[in-house]
């Protein structure tokens, strides 16, 4: 139980994939303009991350290591991610057509979200059990959701705020993201 808590705290706060390891910054900037689409994107990415962590663990342990093909990790994990994202796309298109419309091109672009590949590769490099690997995946997704939702809430406020002309739009978003990242660095001393 304590291990579970440590893994979650470590992947959500201390090693947050977006603000501490700087992975998956494209959806972080791209889908954070509206809170609603940010929540949808968070759910979709968490789903993909957890599923990818599970499937890539199985692929790594059952196929790549017995055949001594560790050098094929990157390409086979990309294949896993592409398949999982395609599945997620079908699933969302069926269950929530509006979310599908709102996410638009960012849904297939989860494939190129470096956080997803990052989690799969980092898990493969660590000696983890299946449960812990999927927990890492879920924790990474939860951390991504946390910062994406926080950031989009801030950007909604920023859109109506009185910002000096040269700082409007992307500039103030970058500054905000930088300050958030500084704040998350503070979690480094937590464990």
């Amino acid at each position: 139980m304590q291990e579970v808590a440590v893994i979650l705290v470590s992947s959500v706060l201390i090693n947050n994939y977006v603000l501490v390891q700087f992975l998956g910054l494209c959806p972080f900037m791209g889908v954070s303009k509206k809170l609603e689409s940010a929540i949808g994107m968070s759910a979709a990415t968490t789903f993909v991350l957890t599923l990818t962590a599970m499937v890539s663990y199985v692929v790594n342990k059952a196929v790549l290591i017995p055949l001594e093909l560790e050098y094929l990790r990157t390409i086979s994990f990309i294949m896993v991610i592409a398949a999982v994202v395609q599945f997620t796309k079908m699933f969302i298109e069926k269950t929530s057509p509006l979310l599908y419309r709102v996410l638009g091109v960012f849904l297939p672009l989860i494939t190129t979200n470096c956080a997803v590949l990052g989690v799969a590769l980092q898990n493969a490099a660590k000696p983890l059990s299946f449960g812990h690997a999927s927990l890492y995946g879920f924790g990474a997704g939860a951390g991504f959701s946390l910062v994406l939702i926080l950031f989009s809430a801030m950007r909604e406020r920023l859109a109506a705020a009185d910002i000096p002309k040269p700082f409007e739009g992307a500039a103030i978003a970058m500054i905000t993201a930088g300050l958030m990242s500084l704040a998350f660095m503070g979690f480094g001393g937590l464990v």
Partner: protein
Amino acid sequence: MLEFIFQNPIISALIALAGLGLIFGALLGFAAEKFKIEGDPVIDQIDSLLPQTQCGQCGFPGCRPYAESIAEGDAINKCPPGGQSTINAIANLLDVPAPELDQEHGEEADVKTVAYIREDECIGCTKCIQACPVDAILGAAKLMHTVIADECTGCDLCVEPCPVDCIDMLPVATGINQWQWPAPPTVNGLIATDRTHGSSSHGGAV
């Protein structure tokens, strides 16, 4: 055979990748069958936001054809009976910026109207009955016609065909059924969505 595969890493790599690809392909193919989509549910949602006057002012035969066209990317500002509130609602649903009403298709009426036939002048030509998109006009050839007020959507389509100009568009009397609470007063603190939906013109001092 197995020995041969293990001794040639290239072959085992090829087999492993091709095998993985085949497995994922099969799973996706199965999922594609399982999650097959029939029709586009977005059309229903757009259709429910349109006013259902079936007036054809948008250039389509009715509200549902227009909803289908919007789902394929047509402009959302072609509906004068719905007016700005309908445009805003559809823009919110589709997450696009709300444009102004396209004046080409007509102007938004200030008050809801209903057709009224001055019955002693009616010659019973049935032309207005054929024009009515919602079958709200009763009557027969050479007999007096009348409008079912509850069914009339106020689309004006029956006014033009009447040869004796006996149809008036009267404003609907405001009774207890139409009364609504007044809108809440606008607050100074704007939120971001106000800007993108264009419902308020005064933004922050820039």
